[in-house]
């Protein structure tokens, strides 16, 4: 297989102009082998791509570029509502063509005609239907906000599988 459908879960705290925001995303990306290297193409959000000599390198660069995009939007927005709108627009601007490629890769996995190669075979499997794309942008510096250690989550990514 040259294309793998991935699901990722990122959580970031972003300082903006007068606020602290929490951005929690469950997104989709396609990991494809092209031009002799791995490319991680965003599906949702669609406007992002990164490469690496290994799948892991492409993922780490994708993660960093995603975070930098959030930082850019925090700079651009004058207030929290503006930041929230920018982030939601960025995330929800899906790439339809990439979505088709993602679904096609998922069908190939489901068919069982070819097995995922290492290291993809070692990734956790998440059901696509149970992990739809979604984004949450909340204000963390609100007076009513409570904080507990259980809210901490590391970055996660997995191979999508059909229900």
């Amino acid at each position, binding site marked *: 297989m040259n294309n793998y459908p991935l699901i990722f879960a990122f959580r970031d705290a972003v300082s903006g102009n007068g606020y602290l925001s929490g951005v929690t995303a469950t997104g989709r990306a396609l990991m494809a082998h*092209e*031009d002799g290297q791995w490319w991680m193409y965003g599906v949702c959000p669609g406007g992002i791509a990164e*490469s690496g000599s290994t799948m892991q390198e492409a993922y780490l660069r994708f993660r960093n*570029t995603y975070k930098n995009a959030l930082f*850019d939007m925090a700079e651009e927005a004058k207030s929290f509502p503006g930041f929230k709108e920018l982030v939601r627009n*960025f995330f929800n601007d899906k790439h339809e063509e*990439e979505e088709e490629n993602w679904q096609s890769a998922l069908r190939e996995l489901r068919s069982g005609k070819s097995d995922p190669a290492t290291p993809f075979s070692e990734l956790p499997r998440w059901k696509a239907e149970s992990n739809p794309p979604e984004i949450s942008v909340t204000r963390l510096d609100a007076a009513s906000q409570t904080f507990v250690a259980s809210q901490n989550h590391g970055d996660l990514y997995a191979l999508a599988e059909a229900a």
Partner: protein
Amino acid sequence: MLQNCAPGCTWRFSTHNRVITFNGHVYRTFPKHDNVELGHIRKMVRFLGIDQDCATQHIPGLFKVKTPAADPAKKSK
């Protein structure tokens, strides 16, 4: 390429990236540095809906060139 294939497109630098706007879409993650890899350009072109044939004319090898024989729609003509 953008001038010819994406008329009306605008772009600017942000702190970390180049932000390109076209066709109602905003591509926020185009690298700032020169010598951008083809995959970044390919993704940006596809995401913004820029004509791929036009882009390939300016950047050879960006997309596989469609030949008439490979295009069923043109075969019957």
